């Protein structure tokens, strides 16, 4: 019974999250929904990072880089690829089954009006031309695949690196990516950011209600669904041999290999899977926000993910996910500045100071995070008692056997 407590709590928590958008009606509805969507986004990142760092022991500091690969893949895909029913004559285009695929030329941020690219010019010249976007879903899938592919390559490269070297290498990867995106302004538009279509550009009808593209409810459930999907995959992995092997790998790579575990394969696999998850989260978030800039790749963002996972409990991805949601909501709640004795306390900054302190205190005094031990209390609390009981039973049986023998 005790063991079910975390599961019951999880179901209740999930129930609250599902019901929330329908129950909550206050004036700041959109803002609160936005906070929660962002919280789910961080929850995906934190839980996948906890699989990578906590389960497999690969402390990667490049997780936001993979997130950025997912986001930028779909952004570039949706920004530069279009379909039309007739040739424009101005762009690079190719016909497949009567549909014209158009590659818009990269013009960077030189134009303030954004009408100078070939497609806009073609549209201006021929208003009858019907132009369509590429499907958003395809972009997200592509982003996820690219993230997984990058994770696979990085996983191969870091096979020989351990601990501090791994952290530095992945950090370096992430920084190179950020610098490249910032610098290649013609393609990525640098700090100006790439605009993306919304998740549901033409609106969506759910249960008889039509939501337009700015409504918060569809992206809320999309992100929540993605989070649940990721947690589902992670749970399945953790319970299968995969979870067992990557933990063995974390504990002792040589011993695992001597027992028949293909360590190389699982190390690369864990990178591929978790990075694909980060990329998927990034792609969905990019479409939800509608614009993406290299600032998403700042180390600050990585610190947030790491801190959330650590405070929740890095060796339990559920704890990491719930920790991320709670912390993100708390960070938003703490935004309100107040005055003390005529001196204004700027909480937008001070909350981050407390966040950093919380991270250090958690690391120092609660090695397994704040949430994970609670879960463990219920799932493993009985173990010590059971061990003693088993030993006593075994001893009693032994004694009884001796009595009988005598």
């Amino acid at each position, binding site marked *: 019974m005790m063991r079910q407590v975390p599961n019951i709590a999880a179901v209740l928590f999930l129930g609250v999250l599902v019901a929330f958008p329908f129950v909550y009606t206050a004036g700041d509805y959109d803002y609160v929904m936005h906070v929660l969507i962002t919280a789910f986004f961080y929850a995906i990142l934190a839980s996948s990072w906890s699989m990578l*760092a906590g389960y497999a*022991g690969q*402390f990667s500091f490049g997780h936001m880089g993979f997130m950025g690969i997912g986001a930028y893949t779909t952004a570039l895909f949706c920004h530069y690829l279009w379909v039309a029913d007739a040739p424009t004559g101005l762009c690079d285009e190719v016909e497949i089954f009567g549909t014209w695929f158009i590659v818009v030329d990269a013009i960077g941020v030189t134009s303030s009006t954004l009408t100078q690219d070939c497609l806009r010019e073609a549209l201006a010249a021929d208003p009858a031309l019907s132009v369509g976007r590429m499907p958003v879903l395809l972009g997200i899938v592509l982003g996820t695949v690219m993230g997984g592919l990058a994770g696979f390559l990085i996983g191969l*490269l870091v096979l*020989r*690196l*351990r*601990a*501090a*070297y791994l*952290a*530095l*290498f992945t*950090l*370096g*990867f992430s*920084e*190179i990516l*950020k*610098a*490249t995106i*910032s*610098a*290649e*302004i013609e393609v990525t538009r*640098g700090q100006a950011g790439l605009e993306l279509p919304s998740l549901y550009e033409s609106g969506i009808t759910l249960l008889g209600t039509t939501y337009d593209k700015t409504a918060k409810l569809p992206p809320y459930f999309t992100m929540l669904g993605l989070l649940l999907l990721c947690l589902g995959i992670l749970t399945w992995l953790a319970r299968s041999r995969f979870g067992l092997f990557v933990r063995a790998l974390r504990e002792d790579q040589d011993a695992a290999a001597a027992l028949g575990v293909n360590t190389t394969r699982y190390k690369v696999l864990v990178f591929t899977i978790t990075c694909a998850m980060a990329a998927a989260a990034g792609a969905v978030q990019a479409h939800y926000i509608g614009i993406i800039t290299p600032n998403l790749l700042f*180390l600050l963002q990585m*610190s947030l993910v*790491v*801190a959330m996972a*650590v405070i929740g409990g890095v060796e339990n991805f559920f704890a990491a996910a719930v920790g991320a949601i709670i912390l993100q909501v708390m960070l938003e709640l703490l935004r309100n500045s107040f005055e003390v004795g005529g001196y204004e306390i*700027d909480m937008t*900054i*001070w909350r*981050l*100071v407390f*966040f*950093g*302190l919380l*991270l*250090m205190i958690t*690391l*120092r005094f609660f*090695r397994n995070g704040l949430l994970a031990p609670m879960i463990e209390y219920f799932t493993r609390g009985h173990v010590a008692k059971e061990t003693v009981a088993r030993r006593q039973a075994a001893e009693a049986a032994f004694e009884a056997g001796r009595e009988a023998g005598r």
Partner: protein
Amino acid sequence: MESPLLFWGVILWMIVWGAVGSVVLRRRYLHRDLDTTNTVFVGAMSGAALGPVGLAPLWLTTPKLGNLLIIAPALLTVFLIAVAFSFADPDNICVTSSGFVASQAVNGLIIGIIYGFMALGLTLIFSILGIVSFAHGEFYMVGGMLVYFISAVWLPGVPPLVAVMGACAIAFLIGAVFERLMLTPMYRGKIDRPVEYGILVTFGLAFTMQYFVQAVAGANPVKAQRFIDFPRMRWPEDSDPIWVKTSRGGVTLFEQVSVSNPRLIAAVTCVLVLLALMYLLHRTWTGKALRAVSQDRDAAAIAGINPDRMNMLAFALGGMIAALAGALLVQAFSWLPQVGNIPAMRSFVIVVLGGLGSLPGAFLGGIMVGLVEAAGTGCIPDAQKAASYIPAYGMIVLTLTLLLRPTGMFGRRFAAGTHGKF
């Protein structure tokens, strides 16, 4: 760039042969049961520099890879990249103006000395505690901030030297207190993965310090006054060009190479402090104890050294070195709470390049990174792009070093016996 195809073609050729060389040569040495420590690096560099022509003799004769064979191909590779660049872009200022190149080189060297000095703190911490401090950039930032606040806000009019020393003292204190409070459980074996713990907890410190400073000091850039003005002079008076010309704000050599006053002061101070540090490490009991702990923790403990005390000293000293670098540069750059991010990354690059835990490696690595950055910013045709790429140059060096030669230039394979595997 006039013919980018030529340049990128050469680079691609180098990458392909470098990759081939690194794999093939290691296999070959492994097969012959020879020492493979340097094979990946030498293979990559000879492949990149000479292609199959360079690799074939190595493959056939498998010589012992001494210093000459390690350094020569690397230098040749750099030289060939430079040649390819000059052919591809003959009008570039780096190709046409020797004065510009000299100026860039001297400035790169000077800033490199400061970089190296800062990285020295990081490598000192690593060699004793076995952790990579992610708070190094924040110590740098705090050092600069303290100098500004001491000399401009709290005690206006104090001599800069006092402000700098005050900043160092406070940074030392922060480092010592943090080490006592947060890092001590690492030494008692209470932590399963001490290396990761060290990274995360210093990461937390960085986060806290950065936002604390931002909360207290605000997010607006501050800048400290120049510490001292140079006297105006020309020497020799009547030659043309004038060899040395100084103004209040800087020095010009041969009317070509100009170095700004704050940078020169900072570099000279760094060299002086470095010499003092070397004296400390090699001539005093404390320094010898520090080095002993970095060599073998347990043996040092048996010899009567308290390794815990040395940990505290090393962490505080390392932080203080970063703070000093910041304190000296606050007169050259405008200062923000985020200002430590890039120097921190650069320090990572330098210590990895030099070899984690190696003091001379850090210094040499600093100079190399300074030169690479100077070449990168000065010679890339598109200036705006070049500026955006600055953080990436170092990181490319870092990732390449980790791939080709994780021990860096002078690294020991298992640096710092303290906390096991790296």
